């Protein structure tokens, strides 16, 4: 991609964002809105500059919780998906349960975890993130391992392939895109979970805690500064997982189409 093309993609949203910030600033100044209701972007900016170190520390705490939960949940999710693939009855038992669990806000389990484990450690929060990521990864990867094109299975049978060869050469490669789709959903979910888990008490160090405590003491400009930190953290997680997906997707490896175009899916 050349510079003008990159600018063509990046510039419009940046301009829209800048205009919105400008309107926000004008409205707050023009209508004389009190800072405890809505601080101006300039006030948030100076509040953020005042406590850059503290915001960075809070981002680091919440980000570490999200990352550890993401990694552990992904590893367990992959392991469990192989079990589900291997045992049909297990799949029939676990998958509907996992889907049901995904539909309810299991984040409300955080106080339970706070009771079960000491609320002076990060364990309850990391456990919560792990649980959320685990189900997303397990369901998607198990689907990828199972939903192999029937023609591929028929071909492998015609080659007299062993079950292990079918696993290694057909099922696992088939599941790779499903894993990255799961990670693209799970990564921002991990940040949100790590962040919201702090609302339920526990140690007083992360982004979520800092937002609630600043809100409680009416330091709205400082609260918004931490919100900006939360936005940046979520974006970083999303961009890394989207980048991973892009790098591993076969459609991105070679540029250009052969004459006649593509027909395969």
């Amino acid at each position, binding site marked *: 991609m050349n510079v003008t093309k990159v600018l063509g993609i990046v510039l419009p949203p940046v301009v829209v964002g800048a205009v919105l910030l400008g309107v926000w600033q004008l409205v707050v100044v023009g209508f004389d809105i009190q800072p405890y209701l809505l601080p101006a972007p300039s006030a948030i900016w100076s509040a953020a500059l005042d406590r850059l170190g503290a915001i960075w520390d809070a981002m680091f705490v919440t980000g570490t919780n999200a990352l550890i939960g993401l990694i552990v949940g992904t590893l367990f999710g992959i392991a469990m998906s192989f079990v589900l693939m291997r045992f049909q009855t297990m799949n029939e038992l676990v998958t509907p349960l996992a889907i049901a669990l995904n539909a309810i806000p299991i984040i409300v389990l955080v106080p339970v975890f706070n009771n079960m484990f000491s609320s002076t450690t990060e364990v309850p929060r990391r456990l919560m993130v792990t649980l959320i990521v685990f189900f997303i990864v397990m369901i998607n990867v198990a689907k990828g391992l199972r939903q192999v094109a029937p023609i591929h299975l028929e071909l492998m*049978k015609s080659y*007299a392939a062993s079950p292990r060869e079918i696993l290694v050469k057909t099922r696992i490669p088939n599941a790779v895109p499903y894993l990255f789709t799961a990670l693209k959903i799970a990564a921002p979910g991990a940040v949100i979970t790590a962040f919201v888990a702090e609302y339920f008490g526990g140690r007083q160090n992360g982004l979520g805690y800092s937002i609630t405590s600043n809100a409680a003491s009416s330091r709205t400009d400082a609260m918004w500064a931490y919100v900006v930190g939360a936005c940046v953290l979520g974006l970083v997680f999303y961009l890394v997982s989207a980048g991973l997906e892009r790098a591993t997707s*076969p459609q991105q490896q070679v540029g250009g189409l*052969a004459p*006649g175009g593509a027909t395969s899916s």
Partner: protein
Amino acid sequence: MSGGSPTPAGTANVVAVDGASMVFNEGASNEVDALCDIELVIRPGEFVSLIGPSGCGKSTLLRLIANLLSPTAGTVLVNGKSAHQARVDQDYGMAFQQSGLFEWRSVEKNIELPLELKGWKKADRRARAAEMLALVKLSEFSQHMPWQLSGGMQQRVAIARALAAHPSLLLMDEPFGALDEMTREHMQSELLRICAAAGTTVVFVTHSIPEAVYLSSRVVVMSPRPGRITNMIDVPLGDDRGEDTREDDSFYGLITEVREALRASETSDPVGGSVRGIEDR
């Protein structure tokens, strides 16, 4: 094989189907008589087409020969051994209506897959893949991914893959069914050239009468409910077929003969009606 080596009696036939029947869901309320008492012998170097309306069991018969299904009665021998043993030995290559390429493998790696499973060394696999790509005239696309190729090119890769291990038998299930007419005719000529060069025996399922006549040395006509063979028609158009063959009077005569055989097989069917799923073009 047309290798000329003396073959012991009893193994001279590439395919020998003896009294084979296939019943799906036997004993259940949705029981289907897919095939009934099939007798079919195919000799080395023959190109045999199976033609018939939808539901006549032609694909089922092909899958019995491939040992992707096992008959409920009767026997199927391939190269003088059981169909199961022939599959384990990879005596045949197979191609379907969809190319079925593995989308995470390059064209070259797709062709190498059956060789990988046979335990070939990497250098040998690479050399054979290059040879097969030259045969289907796609050498410059070896590093492309399947989605970068047109439908016709993908199908050529699938044929190259089916032939990669130099099988004595090629089983094809409507391999050109999804292609446009021009590509299809071109692919038919390519297939004849490739199989003549390798001396491959072919069993070819189709629902197109002109395709069956153009390609085959023998056309096997089938009828449904239960699936059975009603007629066998020899196609004496010679080994050197080209675009002129399609204009030939004897070509049209044979098309008429196959069509009438299909109609005749239909009249024996109590349900009756027109010949379904058959292309006259």
